[in-house]
């Protein structure tokens, strides 16, 4: 027991300081996580606005009506049942937001053709 306690050489001051510096460097690197968390929240806000813009564009297209019935939306029921085909137009609108319009959202919809 006594022998073991006698051999207490411990750390030198330089070693302790080096360890502290390494700790600080690692901590600073982890601070980046906070920043990126905040960035992602803000980005979610840009995405919400981009979705709103795309929705508004889709609504605007719906109000114009389909230009033709060239494409058609087909609903198949399977099991040999007859399928339903609706002539109309598939539309796709993109909304962008954020600095340099960095966030973009594309929504798809279908407008039935009214002859």
């Amino acid at each position, binding site marked *: 027991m006594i022998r073991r306690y006698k051999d207490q050489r411990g750390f030198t001051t330089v070693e302790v*300081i080096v360890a502290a510096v390494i*700790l600080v460097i690692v901590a600073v690197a982890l*601070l980046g996580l906070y920043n990126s968390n905040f960035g992602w*929240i*803000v980005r*979610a806000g840009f995405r919400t*606005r981009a979705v709103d813009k795309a*929705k508004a564009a889709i*609504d605007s297209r719906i109000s114009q009506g389909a230009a033709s019935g060239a494409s058609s939306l087909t609903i198949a029921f399977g099991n040999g049942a007859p399928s339903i085909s609706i002539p109309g137009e598939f539309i796709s609108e993109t909304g962008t937001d954020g600095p340099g319009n960095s966030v973009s959202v594309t929504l798809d919809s279908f407008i039935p053709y009214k002859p």
Partner: protein
Amino acid sequence: MIMRLRNQKGITLVELILVIAVLGFIMAAALSFFLFGTRTFTLGSNQARVQQESRLVTTIVAADLRTALNVRVFTAEGYTPDSDDYVVKRIGSGPYSLVYSRPGVADLTTASIFTSMSFKVTTENSSKFITIDAVGVEGDRSYTIASKMLLENVQPGLLDTDDVIAILFDK
């Protein structure tokens, strides 16, 4: 046991001061790390809250107004909703909040954080649109939302109107 206790050389004052100094530096670094963390957390939660409340405004209205029937808009107080009317209204005199009343369901109210909130009825391609603009502020964070939606089943007679404070409709 006695041998061990006898060998008490202790530490010098210089060593003690050095230890306190090194510990002080580490604590200072840890404290700034902590303070930065709480500050960023507050910033993030303010931003999240203002965005959430703003989105509530457009989501509430978008979900039911799109397929609403018999839409009526009012620019001043003094309207009397029927018992089966759905009512979307702006309350307060800045900051505003939005209240959505539905028959048989508890009212839905956003936080009172909007420095501006406007509803507007416009015509495009002979269809009626409702535009909602709102600016929410929470702490030093702000968020602007603009939403425009087509009224699918609106009856003729709804006129283009700015400065709407209440929208009444049936389902």
